[in-house]
Structure formats: structure tokens, C-alpha cells
């Protein structure tokens, strides 16, 4: 089930979801993937092949910030945190998502 989700779809929303889970906590990469996985009751599965590129891209854009910390394995790990810009970006993306989801639902609604 999870696998069949079209990767285009995921990429569009992935940034938004990452920003969402980083909203309250700073997490490392694995933690982010886990959090999304858990939150979606195992429905959404974040692939590492798109997680890290997405993290690096957002870091370059200044939406998130990384710092080194100590993980639960007692090892050095990179923790990510949302920046102010990131928060703003998240809000606007969220708006757009809601708009899109609503509109799409309206279109599809005619068939149900």
C-alpha cells in the first residue's frame, strides 16, 4: 500500500510534512522519517532516497538549520530545526495544500 503511492505526489508534500514534524522538536533524519511514519499510522512511508535530498535542499534554502548533537545511540548526529523562514514557508505551503486538496476533492467528488 505505502509503496504504491506515486512518488511525484510525495515529493510535493514531503517538504511540508518534514517542516510539520520539525515544528515542535528538532530531530535527526531517521527520527523525522519515523515521526511521519508513526503520525500517519504507518500509511505514509518516507523513503530515505527522497528524505535526505529534501533535507539538504531545505537546508540550502535556509528553511531548516542543522546542528550536531548526541543521539539515543550516544553518537554524534545531525539534528534539524525549522527556521523562521521555514515556518513562513510552511504556512504558505499548507495554505496551498489545503486549496489543492479541496479543489481536487471537488473534482473527484463528482465521481463518487
Amino acid at each position, binding site marked *: 500500500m505505502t509503496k*504504491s*503511492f*506515486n512518488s*511525484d*505526489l*510525495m*515529493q*510535493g*508534500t514531503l*517538504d*511540508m*510534512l518534514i517542516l*510539520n*514534524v520539525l*515544528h*515542535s522538536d528538532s530531530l535527526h533524519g531517521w527520527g523525522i522519517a519515523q515521526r*511521519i511514519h508513526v*503520525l*500517519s*499510522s504507518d*500509511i*505514509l512511508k518516507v523513503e530515505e532516497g527522497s528524505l535526505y535530498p529534501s533535507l539538504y535542499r531545505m537546508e540550502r534554502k535556509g528553511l531548516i538549520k542543522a546542528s550536531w548533537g548526541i543521539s539515543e545511540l550516544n553518537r554524534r548526529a545531525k539534528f534539524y530545526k525549522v527556521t523562521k523562514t521555514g515556518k513562513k514557508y510552511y504556512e504558505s*505551503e*499548507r*495554505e*496551498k*495544500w*489545503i*486549496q*489543492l*486538496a*479541496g*479543489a*481536487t*476533492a*471537488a*473534482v*473527484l467528488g*463528482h*465521481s*463518487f
Partner: protein
Amino acid sequence: MAETPNDLLKGALNLLVLRALRDESRHGWGIQQRINQLAQDTLSINQGSLYPALIRLEKKGLIKSKWGTSEAGRQAKYYSLTAKGRRQMGTETELWKQFSTTVNFILDKA
């Protein structure tokens, strides 16, 4: 009318196109109009992303195209659903519903 980000839209667009072609075959402009109409003008599809999507779908064998004459008497490419496309539309719709519900659920949580 909000601007729709390409990344977000790209996934949904395939589905929207398939849906717009459910009842009859249309040319590109017609597809755009139909989506606008169904979405009650809350969604703006631009040609820049529509045509790439059409090409993608045709390659996957979900839609097929044929040259015809438009209302204005001009030559235009008409698209219609294939059987595979019709099936895919059913699955994708289900997937989309589940996906959007989940995303909405996560978004609401924060």
C-alpha cells in the same frame, strides 16, 4: 485563485486529467476548462504543466490522442481515456483520498 505549486500539483494533476476525460474526449484547452469547471474555479491549471502531464500519461498508456477538428474549425489533438486509464483512475482516486486524508490529519496535528 491561489497559485498552485508545481510540486504539489504534479501528483494530483494526473488524476485530475484522467477525471476530466471520464465522460468524453477533449483537447488540451477543453481539459483545462473542464478541470476549472469541476473545481468551481478554485484551481488554476496552466498549460505549462498540463501538456507535460498529457505526454506522461500517454506514454504510460493511460490516455490516447487523435487529431480532430475543433469547434472553431481548427485542427486539434483530442485525448481520451484508455481502458487501463479508466482502471487506474479508480485506484488513484482511492489512493488520493487516503493520502490527502492522512496528510490533512498530520497537518491538523501541529
